[in-house]
């Protein structure tokens, strides 16, 4: 959609530079004149919010590393040093710790928006899969970051997650030993997690560039899910329209973020992580960070070790196949009355699994986890393929402009 650059440098220096490295023209065509569908709603502002969150995490992370010591004997006390002695250390660490949660809040909204409006469908399959890769990298980064403070949850979370790989037949044990660099989670493990926790965010940034690139090739989806037909009628330039709207949404999101940081900074953490890691004592109740809970519930729902691990990873990998599992010709749930119901049931099942993941694995909780896990997979593997064949969608608007103007008419009347 972004055609050849229309950027014309105003100064002589600008012209000199542009003819040697046309980066200003790239910025101009990507973020100034780039045409955005005129019907975008606020759910479309989370991409920008996520970019800001990535920058917040990288910035606070770089600063925290200036004071943190990745060694089993010093890691826990160096985090306490950050909290008590380093100037503004408490705030920077709380921003980083809660920032991880806010990053996941934003990414879940962003993903559900894609799921609701069919943003994964042709021609946006590669865009969607790049997003799934970013999500996987985020999960790996978040997990390794949680290990660094070397509290009880850090240690036992690392033990449980690395042991997932021991479920692999034949080579499982060798893989876990290789991951640990020893016979159990210990200093070598902490060191490599620290190294990778520093690396992965930059890999995320790299995939984000590809994600935005792919987006700018195929153009944005929109709430009506109809393609742009006439750029002049159906779209508005990115600046000022999207810039201002994204900016406003970011400020609102930052207020929400700041509330967690300054009022309930430890609510999303776990009290046991303020106890230093003890390899000889497992806490009574291990829970991962909230953003992994639905997958943890799926893991525990399956009464077999290998089966549970396979189910848990499949729950994420299945997202990659979404563009081909969904057989409907219509993108947006706005015009899919039956899909809409199944979609909200899916959201409810994911939240339900999140709740169950935090509960002990016994009795009725296990049964409920099994039922919801079955629905989670059925949504992708049964509902998506069949609904496209049986559902009668509502009539689509002829164009984005038509849909917007019709709304304006009915608002007036």
């Amino acid at each position, binding site marked *: 959609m972004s055609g050849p650059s229309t950027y014309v440098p105003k100064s002589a220096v600008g012209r000199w530079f542009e003819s040697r490295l046309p980066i200003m023209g790239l910025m101009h065509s990507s973020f100034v004149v780039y045409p955005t569908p005129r019907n975008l709603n606020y759910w479309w502002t989370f991409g920008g919010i996520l970019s800001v969150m990535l920058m917040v995490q990288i910035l606070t992370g770089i600063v925290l590393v200036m004071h943190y010591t990745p060694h089993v004997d010093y890691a826990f006390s160096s985090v306490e040093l950050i909290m008590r002695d380093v100037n503004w250390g408490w705030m920077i660490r709380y921003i980083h710790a809660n920032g991880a949660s806010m990053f996941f809040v934003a990414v879940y909204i962003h993903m559900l928006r894609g799921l609701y409006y069919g943003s994964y469908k042709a021609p946006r399959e590669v865009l969607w899969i790049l997003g799934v890769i970013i999500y996987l990298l985020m999960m790996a980064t978040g997990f390794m970051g949680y290990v660094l403070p070397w509290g009880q949850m850090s240690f036992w979370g690392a*033990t449980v997650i690395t*042991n997932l790989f021991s479920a692999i037949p034949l080579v499982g044990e060798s893989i876990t030993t290789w991951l640990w660099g020893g016979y159990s989670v210990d200093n070598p493990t902490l060191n490599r997690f620290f190294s990778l926790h520093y690396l992965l965010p930059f890999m995320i940034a790299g995939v984000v560039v590809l994600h935005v690139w792919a987006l700018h090739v195929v153009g944005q989806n929109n709430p009506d899910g109809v393609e742009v037909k006439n750029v002049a009628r159906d779209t508005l330039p990115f600046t000022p329209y999207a810039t201002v709207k994204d900016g406003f949404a970011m400020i609102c999101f930052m207020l929400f973020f700041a509330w967690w940081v300054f009022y309930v900074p430890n609510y999303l953490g776990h009290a046991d992580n303020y106890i230093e890691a003890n390899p000889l004592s497992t806490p009574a109740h291990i829970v991962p960070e909230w953003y992994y809970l639905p997958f943890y519930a799926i893991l525990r729902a399956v009464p077999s070790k290998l089966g549970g691990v396979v189910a848990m990873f499949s729950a994420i990998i299945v997202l990659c196949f979404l563009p081909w599992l969904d057989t409907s010709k219509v993108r947006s749930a706005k015009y899919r009355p039956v899909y809409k119901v199944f979609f909200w049931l899916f959201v409810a099942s994911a939240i339900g699994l999140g709740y169950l993941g935090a509960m002990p694995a016994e009795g009725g909780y296990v049964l409920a986890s099994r039922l919801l896990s079955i629905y989670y997979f059925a949504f992708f593997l049964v509902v998506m393929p069949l609904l496209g064949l049986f559902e009668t969608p509502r009539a689509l608007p002829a164009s984005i402009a038509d849909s917007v103007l019709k709304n304006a008419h009915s608002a007036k009347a």
Partner: protein
Amino acid sequence: MLFIATGAVGAVGVGSVAWPFIHQMNPDASTIAAGAAIDVDLSAIPEGSSVTVKWRGKPIFVRHRTPKEIKEAGDVTLAQLPDPQADAQRVKKPEWLVVIGVCTHLGCIPLGNQGEYDGWFCPCHGSAYDTSGRIRKGPAPKNLEVPNYAFASDTKLTIG
């Protein structure tokens, strides 16, 4: 032909450069050295109690079993077990049970003298082990692992 030969040489080159970068993550010499055998004094463990010693960063349960516990472990029919193994295969002297105290599910440490089989109970995902350290209930697939050990004398146990 030349392309295939070039490609093959290139693949060998890439592989031999990659291996040190992969293998460096395996346990280093000092970690392996620190994982050498340890001794446990058995005279300090009265019948009916157990001690936990740390070996290779993991807890090892050394349990001085009572006649009742030995009988419970021996009376089980193997068909009842998810990971069938006779008690006699798991111990060298019936009164001493030595197992690695790491749940075979996802690596938590089971709690002693708990659960419905008088052995261990894992608080993480609810696996229950019997007085021979065998899995009886829950998601763990295998019995608690028995490390290499030997009785150096009647009161000294060497693990490793």
